[in-house]
């Protein structure tokens, strides 16, 4: 076990865990932040996507020992009131079906728009194809990203 100090959603949080513990489980089990989801445990589905220094990162394969001074943002920290343009666009297009993957989808989309405010369809496909949705909401996700890009 080792003590870590993490900067998450603008706050500093202390945890004492094994250095190999993925950030996903630090968030979910130790910090009671369940917005970041477990889907595959091997960075194949994107349900666990967070921002590490603003970049979309799969938290299920990211050990806490690798974080250093990097800043973490989770879906809870994107905005707590859905005021972020991507969250707003998700509501406008009523994207969710079961909703389980959508936190990860939103985090991938938000990171895309930060680095590329006017993405083409191909840019969106490239940035989003690591996020699986079994309900098949991909078309609405694309529309929502385009709506958010206009704001």
């Amino acid at each position, binding site marked *: 076990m080792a003590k870590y100090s993490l900067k998450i959603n603008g706050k500093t949080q202390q945890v004492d865990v*094994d250095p190999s513990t993925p950030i996903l489980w630090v968030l979910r089990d130790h910090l009671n932040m369940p*917005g970041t989801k477990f889907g595959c445990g091997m960075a*194949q589905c994107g349900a666990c996507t967070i921002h590490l220094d603003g970049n979309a990162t799969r938290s299920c394969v990211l050990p806490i020992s690798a974080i250093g001074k990097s800043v973490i943002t989770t879906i809870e920290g*994107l905005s707590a009131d859905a005021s972020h343009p991507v969250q707003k666009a998700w509501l406008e297009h009523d994207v969710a079906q079961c909703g389980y993957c959508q*936190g990860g989808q939103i985090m991938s989309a938000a990171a895309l728009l930060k680095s590329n405010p006017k993405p083409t369809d191909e840019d969106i496909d490239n940035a989003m*194809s690591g996020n699986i949705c079994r309900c098949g*909401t991909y078309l609405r996700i694309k529309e929502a990203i385009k709506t958010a890009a206009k704001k």
Partner: protein
Amino acid sequence: MKNINNSEAVAPPSGAGGAVSRRSFLRSSAIAGGGLMLSFSWFSSAQAAEKVEALNLADQWSELAAYIKITPDNVVKILVPNPEFGQNVMTSLPMMVAEELDCDWKNVVVEMSTHDNVKYGMQFTGGSNSVRMYWKPLRNAGAAARQMLIEAAAQTWGVSATEITTKAGVLSHSSGKTAKYGEMAAKAATLPVPKDVKLKAPKDFSIVRNSKKNTEGLKVVIGKPLFGMDYRVDGMLIAMIQHPPAFGLKLKSFDATAAKKMPGIKDVFSFKLYEDGFEQAGFDTRTFNEMIAIVGNSTWEVMNARKKINAQWEAAGDTKDLVNGRAGKKEVTVPGRLETTSKQLEMMAEFANGRQSTKPAQQLRKDGDPETAFKNAAQIIERTYNAPFLAHNTMEPMNFFAHVEADKALVAGPVQAPGWMEPSLTKLLNLPADKIEIQMTRMGGGFGRRAYAQYAYEAARISQKMKAPIKLIYTREDDMTYGIYRPMYTATYRAALDANKNLIGFHVIGGGIPENPVHANRFPAGAVDNYLAEGWEIPSNITIGAFRAPRSNFNAAAEQSFLDEVAEAMGKDPIAFRLDLLKRAKENPVGKNNDYDANRYIGVLELLKEKSGWGKPENAGKKRGVAAYFCHASYAGHVVDMVMRDGQPYVESVTSAVDCGVVVNPDAARNMVQGAVVDGIGQSFYGALTHKDGVPEQNNFHNYRMIRHNEAPKKIDVHFVENDIDPTGLGEPPFPPVFGAVANALFKTTGKRYYNQPFMSEQPNAKS
């Protein structure tokens, strides 16, 4: 065969709900209205007064029906009886209540109810049933509550109830008196429930048929805890299980010394899910009976400890299950063989065309004289279609919370059929039903998988042993390799044409491991004079379950491809050919026992033809495939436009037409159809769960391919047939015909017919 109930007949068993009070008028009206066994125990006035609860939004709720609570400040809470797995019942069911209650949708809050067989009847999500089975009962509840509010106002104002009108949550009298519902709610709750209520005509709907946003959309986008995975209580432990690595193996012995020494680990032990002689209900399917449980403080610690277990497995041999399902109580022998996909295909091929004398298939339907028709045929077209097992791959893996104590138990998590769990839990835990509380969380997908709650029973067993609250979590690998798959199917279709290219005979013989897919009484039964349907089954230890209409999604691929090929041989347009057959079935049906309504089928095909511009010159250059199918109680069809992109087939756009009766929430319904199209393309192109010596060859998303963003169509236009038919369900029906339309578009695009799923396994140089 293991626990085989017809995997597609996911409808509430008759008599579900058990000993329900007959005082509820809603129960009897529901039966009169549609043969539904639903029960709503309404509170008498005295009980209602006691039931004014302190809940989260206000300190005074007046309960007007089992589903409706109103505060003095006019907030209307509507409880949703059926679990949510993405079909949006948390919005559509309250819309039905609010419509008849005549309240302001802006004032409505929605909450998942707990499980209560007595109060809510059979709570069940699956079989495209939620909106369909609650259509009348929930509207009755809304209308009755409205009537009670009117009566309360009439008594308060000293006027006749007939002179009071309602609109958007306001009661008005011709004298000019008005009151908001909240002002009358407490009094209304003390009044008797009206014996008879009048429901609105569809033309008067103002909430139903008007798109409403998902009531849980906000919680989804800000990451609030909603799902079983998110459930937690203080002091809760995390549990995982290790199941045998292959179908047909069982636990021989294990050494957990090292695992138990790992940090944070509380215990490692083996447990039996069912005691010997346990009588399984139809949905108590379990693949493995003895497993190793690992319990500890946190998920990562438990995952790591599991790797340290040294377990030995051995052949299970043939085993017996005692199953009391739809077919009655019977002992089922589960074969012990370790299965390999290539061998499974060989076995199925042996059975496929029905020409073996030693393994006769069961005749399911026969019209006319098919033998003679085929004997006299000028041309016979015969094709065989295959499809593999499919894993559900809900994005949220299986999980469940359980806290079993000496005299009571709480279980909570994602489950489609809480009512079916209850009787089995009472037996497993030896506790009376009223001491077992079942809470339903939002499900991260279901698609049929969560109708089989064996993971909840495992959680209960582990909690019982630990004497502590635990949450059982499956990893993706646990989830994908556990079984309860869409079955492996095959079917051979034969068509007999006379010298003038008329269809004079039709024969389907289908089977599967371990279930026969053939729906003998569906189209084209009823449209062909000489018709034969046969089915067979090969028992297996690979467990199967419902999968977004498993038999239908196979049949729609096979039959709709076959009809395309027959139309081609006859020189007919594929839509015109189907319409000719349906016209025959409508005007002069063969046989009496046809499951489908030819008229609604025709309506969908005609709408599809119109909206897709089928046959129009501007679409002449497109590579298009069409299919339409009936399943559950609705009709759906798609036209798929395909192109070659980077050397591979790609579905660029889709036009869909659906008849599901009244569409309660149109935009959400379009979302579900679009999702079914994307899911159908993905499953038909890529989906497969194969085996080698009993071991699943896919165990996570790196080797089980799911459709992704870049593979989804650019456009899916969804059109609904407009009618006033009571809703007939939407979760499953749009999914099956996608498979057939994709197969037919593949032919147009590549010049090659695709008979085996996943289709991309037959595509040269397909990217894996």
